[in-house]
């Protein structure tokens, strides 16, 4: 049987290429959400309303998939997940139809929402540690900074931010990214010790305390933020 996909999520040619997440973050309570395919009591520690660490791993937060709610995406849509070619980036003015991606999405049985207020995770600094090697010394010289340090490591400040990354069948898809002190993206491909430390510290400082199982309210996204001509 063919699965039906909620067409309201599909990017439209009259949508903006990319929403400005800083403008959206300036709304009262903008919210992003990730879904867990595990039951609620295996997703959250119920007593303390905190996310279990086996639901989002620290190394996953570089490029962590999230969805902006308050526009056309509603909680009932969290069961739908793009896969394969549908996960590729959508660029205006491309017209997409679900017919083309009929085999590129799935519907999960369980979709427990994990909420983050955008303000809690966007443009948030976090510390990370880098061994006092020649590369780190070069960076310090180039940036003309004097970072705090331990005996053998410098303490740098990275930045966590959220970027709008619509895919072929979900305009409301956003991702979490980490930048290093030089404003360069830290990617999962970077296997260095300091990059791993950055992911762990960002997880500790930003993700673990801010994941919520419920939110009281969230902002409606004004049409001006996503329609090309409001």
């Amino acid at each position, binding site marked *: 049987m063919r699965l039906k996909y909620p067409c309201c999520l599909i990017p439209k040619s009259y949508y903006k290429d990319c929403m400005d997440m800083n403008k959206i973050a300036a709304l009262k309570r903008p919210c992003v959400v990730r879904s867990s395919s595990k039951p609620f009591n295996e997703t959250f*520690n*119920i*007593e*303390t309303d*905190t996310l*279990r*660490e*086996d639901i989002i*791993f620290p190394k996953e937060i570089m490029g962590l998939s999230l969805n902006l709610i308050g526009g056309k995406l509603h909680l009932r849509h969290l069961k739908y997940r793009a896969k394969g070619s549908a996960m590729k980036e959508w660029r205006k003015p491309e017209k997409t139809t679900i017919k083309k991606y009929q085999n590129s999405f799935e519907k999960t049985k369980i979709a427990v929402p994990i909420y983050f207020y955008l303000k*809690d995770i966007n443009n948030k600094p976090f510390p990370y*540690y880098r061994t006092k090697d020649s590369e780190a010394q070069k960076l310090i010289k180039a940036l003309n900074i004097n970072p705090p340090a331990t005996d053998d490591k410098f303490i740098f400040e990275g930045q966590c931010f959220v970027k709008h990354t619509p895919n072929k069948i979900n305009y409301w898809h956003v991702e979490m990214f980490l930048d290093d002190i030089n404003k360069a993206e830290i990617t999962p491909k970077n296997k260095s*010790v300091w990059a791993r430390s950055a992911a762990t*510290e960002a997880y*500790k*400082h*930003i993700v*673990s*305390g*801010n994941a919520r199982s419920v939110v009281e309210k969230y902002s409606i996204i004004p049409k001006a933020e996503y329609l090309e001509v409001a």
Partner: protein
Amino acid sequence: MGSVILSDSEVELYQSDIDDDSLRKYILVAAMVGCFSEAPKIQAATYSANQIELKLQEINGSFDIEKYIDISKAFKIQNDSEQSVEFKNMSIISPKIDKEFEKYSNYIEKDISSAKAEATGVAKVIAQIKFDKISVELTPSNTIKFTLTFDKEKMLMVTYPFDTIEGVNKGDVVFSVFVNRKHIASDSMNLTDLVAGFNNFLSV
């Protein structure tokens, strides 16, 4: 039932005018560390990194107190209210540890029974904190994480690694403190010091 926590490194002889109730506890402790041949009834004893904790039944009335005043100045006798907090908290934490080990022991990269004993030792120190709610989880990083909440505002996360990890001394824990979900501090340190420090923080 009483509870005594002592440093196992500073045993010395000492005579005191402490009240009888405390004295009996001291003697039970001293008995446990080998000062006496006649060990009174000892219900349970567990060992953690720097401490020995004894859970004791009431001493036998015929025990000759005068003969055995042989104890450490370093013994820290907890008052009754602290004891009741610790025991009450352990009654909350222990079933959670059991449940996690039943369900997620595949995350642990060492002998499960020794990991569980370590986890229980850590829990007994954490139980000295007066929390409102607590959750316990085994994580895929081969750690056990305790999350404690206080007054709906403060939150403490304590992670104990079952194996050594870079930047953390063996036996230490990694902790994070949040106020209104905002991260305010993280570090790694000795658990006993953390508990003492955090109790001070809560009392401010």
